[in-house]
Each structure stands twice: as C-alpha cells, then as structure tokens.
C-alpha cells in the first residue's frame, strides 16, 4: 500500500466517522423543557422535536392543556413534573405511533357531561407506552381509543368525586386491540378499568379499589385475560359482560358490599374460565345471568353473603374444586330447575360424613338452603339467620327437599379444603 493510498483511507474513515457522529448527534437531540427556560412549555418542546427524539421535562408545574404529540417521540418527566390542566379540557393527546410518556404528574382535567375529558388520550395510535404517571383529580384517566398494542403500566390514578355520574373511568379502552394494562392503581373513579370492544386485552397486577361503580368493567371484549389483580371495595364490584373466551385467574375480589354489589358479575358470558381467584367478604361473590359454558374451578370463596347467585338463564356452567368457606349462603337461584353442574367442591357448611374415607362425602350436599328460599319470599326474615329454628328447618329440607331445587346438589362434596 502506498503512502497516498493510506492517506486516502484515513481521510475516508475520518469522513465516515464525522458523518456518523453528525447523524447520531441529531438523533440523540435532547430537548429540555424547564420552568427556568429557555423552553418553558411542554407543547413547545414537543413541537421542536423530530421523530424518535426525547423531550425531557424537568420538575415544576406546567399549566397546559391539549398538549398534542403527533410524532413518535419519548416524553420523559424528571422528578415528576406536574401538568395542571386547570380544570379545562383534555391535558394530553397522543396521535402518533410508538410514543412513550413517562414520569409525569397530571391533574385537574375538565369535567363535562358531553365530552370525555381525559388526562392522557391515545387516539388511533399503536405501540405506545404510558408509564409511571400519577393522575390526580381527573375526569377520565388514560383513554385508549382505536389503538393497537401499547402498554399502560404502573400508573396511579386517583380522584375524589364520589358521584358516579360526574366521574369518568380510570383506564378506558374503546375499540382497541392487544392492549396491556399492567401494575396500575386506580381509586375513586367511576370504573377502575373499562373495556368496550377491546380484543385480546392482557390486564394484570393492577389494583382497583374504591371506585364508584366497577373495579373492572368488561363489555363486548373477546379473548382477553386478566389475572393477579385486586378489586376491593368498589361500589358494584367487577362486571364482565357480553364477551367470550375471557380468562380470569388468580384475582382477588374482596369487600364489595351492597345490595347491587358483586365480587364478580357475569352477564351474557360464554366459553370463559374463572380459576384460582379468591372471593372474600363480598355481598355476592359470583353472580351469573344468561351465561353459559363457564368453568369455575379452584376458586376460594370465603365469608361472602352469597357465594353464588345463579339465575336460571345460566346454563352448562361447571363449578368444581372450589372451596366454599363459611358463606352466609352458598348458592341462590330463582328456579326449581337446575341447568348447571356443581361437582367435587369443598363446602364448609356440609354436615355429611365419609365412612369409606375416600375424602368425598357419602351424601350429596345441597347448597341451596331453605332459608335462602324463605328470604327470597320474605326478605325481613333475614334477621333470623343462624337461629336454631332456621337451622332445624334447613336440616329437614336438606333431608327431604320440597321447596329447594331437587337437582341442584354436589354429589361429590370434598371432606377437606382443596389446597
């Protein structure tokens, strides 16, 4: 190699390196928004960013609304800057794919009976990440409309409007596909997590407490799964309706109290699984209306008012290997006929015996008590619960069923709790 050739090579490499550095320089453009300036508005910062840029927002309070993101950028808050919507309109709208919004505090959206004002609206976008934001006093929290994929993770949403009509939903999904809702906490909203026409949703490890209506509200949303969530003290519990192929696993439903409150309300559900959940101290643990082919197994249903309230419109549902522990009433139904199967559950109210020692009671257990039929007719007799007289009536009825469904029984009641 000649000296000239070497020089040429060096120049070539230098040129290449310079070009590369220049390119990287522009790709890594850091746009800083800070109350001290020079850029003091988040919208201005976003407007200066090109695709794949990161806009960093430093701590402070920014009074802005209708912030629009129309390019695939990352918007990151440092030490949780607060965006205050001042009670007007929506705070932030994402209208581009692959946007990340992270680390903000958002508060005071507008409230309206006509428009769904939202802290963060994701509108017709895909592959977004909305993460680690704290939402406070908002009408709607995070609103997904016609999105695909995308993650909503570890956000806190809290509001204090206790009226159902004037509060919006915490995480609202409408007409979306493949959303992932993970590790969020929602309190004091209308519905904690609301799904309408959401396909293949994956919802897990969320905590939805103290919402005015449902902790989770599932409508016309097929093929989803939700697991490891906690739904506690919601006005009406959790409702899953008009959907099929929904997997509900290992969730905790507890302390949902009231005359129209349910641990889990099923309506017009088909082909779904409810497994490994824990229902604790709900007025009604599982309520089912017009639902078919649901597998309810290995759930732990303890200290509820009614463990199961199943309407006669429900059929071919299969309850097996559940622990029914110390519920005031095990099963309630509105018809003398029975179209569902109860088999191999553990019932703490079972008083039978197991002479052949195979762990299965030798006489069937009838989970619908006479008393539950009595209070259906005359609700005031509720005050007689657990009285000796009622126990005698119940025992007599169990031996010779007259008023309770003759075919509703568990032929293989377990003698011991299912671990």
């Amino acid at each position: 190699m000649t000296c000239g050739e070497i020089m040429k090579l060096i120049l070539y490499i230098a040129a290449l390196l310079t070009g590369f550095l220049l390119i990287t320089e522009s790709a890594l453009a850091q746009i800083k928004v800070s109350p001290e300036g020079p850029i003091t508005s988040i919208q201005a910062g976003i407007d200066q960013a090109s695709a794949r840029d990161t806009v960093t927002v430093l701590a402070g309070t920014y009074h802005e609304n209708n912030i629009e993101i129309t390019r695939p950028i990352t918007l990151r808050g440092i030490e949780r800057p607060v965006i205050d919507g001042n009670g007007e309109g929506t705070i932030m709208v994402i209208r581009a794919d692959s946007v990340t919004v992270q680390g903000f505090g958002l508060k005071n959206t507008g409230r309206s009976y006509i428009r769904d004002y939202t802290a963060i609206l994701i509108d017709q976008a895909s592959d977004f990440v909305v993460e680690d934001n704290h939402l406070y006093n908002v009408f709607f929290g995070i609103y997904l409309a016609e999105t695909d994929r995308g993650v909503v993770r570890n956000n806190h949403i809290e509001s204090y409007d206790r009226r159902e009509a004037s509060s919006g939903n915490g995480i609202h999904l409408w007409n979306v596909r493949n959303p992932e809702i993970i590790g969020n906490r929602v309190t004091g909203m209308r519905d904690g997590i609301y799904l309408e026409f959401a396909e293949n949703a994956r919802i897990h490890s969320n905590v939805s407490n103290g919402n005015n209506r449902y902790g989770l509200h599932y409508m016309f949303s097929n093929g989803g799964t939700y697991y490891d969530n906690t739904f506690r003290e919601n006005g009406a519990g959790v409702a899953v309706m008009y959907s099929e192929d929904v997997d509900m696993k290992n969730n905790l439903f507890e302390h949902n109290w009231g005359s129209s409150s349910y641990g889990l309300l099923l309506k017009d559900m088909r082909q779904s699984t409810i497994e490994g959940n824990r229902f604790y101290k709900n007025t009604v643990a599982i309520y089912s209306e017009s639902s078919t082919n649901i597998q309810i197994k290995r759930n732990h249903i303890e200290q509820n008012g009614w463990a199961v309230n199943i309407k006669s419109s429900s059929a071919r549902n299969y309850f097996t290997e559940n622990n029914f522990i110390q519920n005031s009433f095990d099963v309630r139904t509105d018809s003398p006929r029975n179209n569902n199967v109860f088999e191999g559950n553990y019932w703490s109210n079972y008083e039978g015996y197991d002479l052949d020692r195979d762990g299965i009671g030798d006489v069937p257990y009838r989970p619908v008590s006479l008393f539950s039929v009595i209070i259906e007719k005359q609700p005031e007799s509720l005050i007689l619960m657990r009285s000796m007289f009622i126990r005698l009536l119940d025992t007599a009825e169990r031996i010779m069923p007259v008023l309770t469904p003759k075919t509703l029984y568990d032929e293989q009641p377990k003698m011991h709790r299912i671990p």
Partner: protein
Amino acid sequence: MNSLLLHIAKNEWKSLLRGKWVVGYALIFLLLTDSLLRFGGGGPEALLSLSNVMLLFIPLVGMIYGILYIYQSREFIELLLTQPIDRKVLFWGLFAGIATPLMLAFVIGSLLPLGWHGILLLDAAASSMVLGLGAVLTLIFVSLGFLFGLAFYDDRIKGFGFTIVVWLFLAILYDGLVLMLVFMFGQYRLERFVIAVSMLNPIDLARIMVMLEFDISALMGYTGAVFNRFFGSNMGIIMASGMLTLWLAIPTWIGLRVFKKKDF
C-alpha cells in the same frame, strides 16, 4: 359491704372449684374449641361453630345451674340469712360467687385453644365478640335461673319444668313465631317490627351480634333502609349491647327484689 360480698363470693368459688363440675364444664369448651380448630378448618369457621354451641347451650346450662344452686343450697342460704348480714350483700355475693366461675369456665375453656391456635391474634375482634357474648349470656341466664329458683322455691319439679320451657321458647320456638308473624303480615314493612321483636329475646340479641360479625356481607345485600341503618352502622351493635345490658340488669334486679322480700 364489698369485702363481705367478696368473702361470700370467694367461699362459693372455693366450693365450686372443689366440686369439679365447673372445671369439667371448662374442659368441655376446651376440647370443643380445640377440636373445632384442629379438624374444622379456619378460625372464623371454628368461631362460628363455637358461637352456635354457645347460643344453644349456655342459656340452658346457665339457667339449670342457677336454679340448681338455689335448690341445693336452701338450708345453707337460710343459715346465712340468720347471720348478721344484709340480704342485698348476700344476694350479690352468692350471684357473683356462682355466676363468675361458670362464666370464666366458658371464657378460659374457649380462650386457651383460641390462643394456642393463634386465632386470638388473627381474628381478635371476632374472638373477643364470641367470648364476650358467651360471658354475658352466662350471667343473664344464671340470673334467670336464680330468679326461677327463688320464684319456685318450694316446687322443684315446677321450677325445672319452667326452666326447660323458657329455654325451648327462647332458643327455638320464639324464632319460629317471628317467622310465622313475618309471613302472616308479609305485605307490610316489617323491618322495624322484626328488629324490635328480636330485641326482646336475649338469645336473639346475641345471635344478631354474631351475625353482625360474621354475616355482614349478606346483611348488606338487603335493600331495606331500616335494616341498612341498623346493620350498616354501629347502631346495631350499640342497640344490641344496650338491650343485652338491660337483659342482665332486669332479671337480676327482680331476683334481688324477690330475694329481699322472700320468706325463707
């Protein structure tokens, strides 16, 4: 007066302890609670079974025990009455002397297994509720037994018969009557009525308090406003405990009046 009262009570305690009867009673509850906890599943379950036993048997045992004491100790009571001592002090001394050991037998007998199975800490509220109710029921029904013993002082058959009838009535038939009335007048709003009627029976009162502890989830499913206010707030507990106190005070007070006026 108080030291004298204690002197009388202490003598009864010594006597009862030696009689082993009360010790046996404590052992029954000890075995019962222990086996409920050992074989019957979790704490709340065992507590509920215990309270079922308690609601049924403590009233019977309490009354029989109270009346039997009067019948067995007639001559001794008469001897004490010839001593320079106020009848009031003697009454309280004897009542405290025999009611507290029975009460403690229940409380200690049930408390120990709850303690060593860890339920006492785990379900502290429910445990103390059940133990407290058992204690109060014991006092109420020993007092009633005392009263019946004094009222049927010379006729044991009548006294025991009356006791059994009262127990059957309060423990079982009363609720049957309530249910019948509820169905007869079903077209009216009966919430206030059934609450009032239940307040008149101490066993029902205790049962309602057990219910408030263990069945609140079901109670909240009822739509009536009166029930909701009664069960949903502290009002239910406060009213029921108030009525239980009355149930303890009134028979004891009548017993004292009878005792003070009685010819022995």
